[in-house]
């Protein structure tokens, strides 16, 4: 299996006034194609920063980030936008849907930014909503849907561009346990059936244990990195 993501000596510092916070402390990490990874850690441990850095939403202060073997740490904002659009999909704890647009428009957004025309975007959005059993809600706006339904729309949006990697930042953090399970099942299916790489941040150990690999972050460092087979061993 070829390495999809390689982080070498990545640091991220935040300077707020007098104090300097080292959110990522010389991180080295390799994630291969077709992995299901959970990043766990206490709040403030740097797990979200790590996810944002991996998802090209945030730039590291120093270090090297190879995506498909290509250095991306020094790319400009528009190049990063392009890469996110083509290779990545995101699901967030707060769903982050556009409140003024219905489900179908939210889902097709990545395609519109890619230059796909309106009709084709709509068609593909409908297909993907159907796959997530959300056809019924295609004309509903976010405030007319439950949390679980909103997260499904958000996942549909993450998937419509057919990305290599799906990032999920506490995707069940705002959901009840039954809905959480359904959503996690969606991610597991993505990994198992669609052969996607899924990287998920969670503080819920039960969810993390369902993933094939669990990375524990503390004070900006990876303190533990276990794969399923090692855990069983």
């Amino acid at each position: 299996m070829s390495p999809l993501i390689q982080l070498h000596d990545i640091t991220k510092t935040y300077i707020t006034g007098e104090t300097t916070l080292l959110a990522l402390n010389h991180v080295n990490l390799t994630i291969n194609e077709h992995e299901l990874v959970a990043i766990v850690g206490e709040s403030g441990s740097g797990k979200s920063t790590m996810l944002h850095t991996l998802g090209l939403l945030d730039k590291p202060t120093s270090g090297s980030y190879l995506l498909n073997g290509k250095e991306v740490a020094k790319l400009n904002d528009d190049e990063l936008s392009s890469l996110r659009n083509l290779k990545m999909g995101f699901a967030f704890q707060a769903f982050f849907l556009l409140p003024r647009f219905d489900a179908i428009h939210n889902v097709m957004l990545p395609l519109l930014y890619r230059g796909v025309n309106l009709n084709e975007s709509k068609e593909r959005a409908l297909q993907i909503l159907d796959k997530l059993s959300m056809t019924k809600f295609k004309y509903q706006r976010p405030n007319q849907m439950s949390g679980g339904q909103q997260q499904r729309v958000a996942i549909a949006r993450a998937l419509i561009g057919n990305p290599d990697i799906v990032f999920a930042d506490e995707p069940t953090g705002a959901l009840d346990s039954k809905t959480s399970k359904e959503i996690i099942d969606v991610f597991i299916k993505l990994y198992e059936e669609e052969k996607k790489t899924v990287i998920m941040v969670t503080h819920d150990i039960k969810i993390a244990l369902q993933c094939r690999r669990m990375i524990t972050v503390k004070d900006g460092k990876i303190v533990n990195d276990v794969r399923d087979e090692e855990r069983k061993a």
Partner: protein
Amino acid sequence: MNLKMHFRTAITNLNSTKLRSMLAALGILVGTASVVAMISGGQLASYQALQQFKALGTNLMSITINTASSSDSGDSSNLSSATTSSPVTVQEAINLKTASSDITSIAPYISLYQPMKFQGHTVSGTILGTTETLQNIMKLTMQEGRFVSLLDKNNYYCVIGQKIYTELKKYSLDPMGQQISIGSSIFTIIGILKDWTQNSFIYADLNQSVFVPINTAYIISSYAQIYNVILKLNEGTNITTLEQDITNYFNQNIPGKSLYFQSAAQILASMTSQQQILTAFLGFIGGISLLVGGIGIMNIMLVSVAERRQEIGIRLAVGAKKRDIQKMFLIEAVVLSFFGGIAGVLFGLTISFAIAIYQGWLFMIFYQPILLGFVVSVLTGIFFGFYPAYKASKLLPIETLRGIE
């Protein structure tokens, strides 16, 4: 994302904050409306003024002849010297034609105020002693009969204006051929004029006038004197040279007169320059309203950018580039000001329509103020929407998404 999608997005976004969008567009509305109303109203006014000259032609000149005061010392000798200047005779006035080859026809006239009676009823109006050339120069058309002429010598014939005719009709079914007393003389009505459009070239209301042969005027009143002459000139006559020629003619033949010239070309020129000053001034006021309106747009767009940080973050996360974000906000500002502009143009036209009704002008829609209104409102949107849009495009995805986690 193509432009069409950007516009749809802008309309969705503006529609979801209707009240605020409307309030923001209000400033542009007022600005555009004032620009449109002012320019359109100004054009209506100048069109109205030009109409007078279009009917008569711009190659007219009027001369007012007064007796010049011979010295500045205000003693009694002044009075005697003033009276020594003899009045202008009809023949002298007609001979004025020899002063310049640019003069094509001459209409001297005498205004008199005398009591008039028709079948025992008092009639009010101006008495004008004229020649047949006045009819031609002022484009007077006959409803019935003929105009007075020099050939009438001092016959007691008269022609009545339309308003006088209407008045006389109250007492007689057909005033034509009937008699009217002017002062102590009896005149026969030989002609009736059609309605005449007022113009600033002659100091009397010709509809409310009774025209008599110029020589007869001298018989009606001993005060009769030619104070006014109207000239028709060749096209493109040099007014300054002509004024000099006429002044020379008077100095040689009828000394002791002061002349006051008024030419249609001069009136037009001064009207045009007044119009330009007015338009510039009103345009300035409109410009200030637009500036205020534009600041309103900028303000609302800055608020919008601040409020929609999360939306910006989401769009960046799914692949929007900086220019996409910039376009989104810029197009919203333009759409907002364009709607303000449409409403402003309509409102401005309504105002100019009201002005036209109030002033009794003919209402017309000119395309320049409408075009200008739209262009100016859109430009205002682009100008004042640019900074907020630029600010939005500078945001980074993680900055905009954080804080909600």
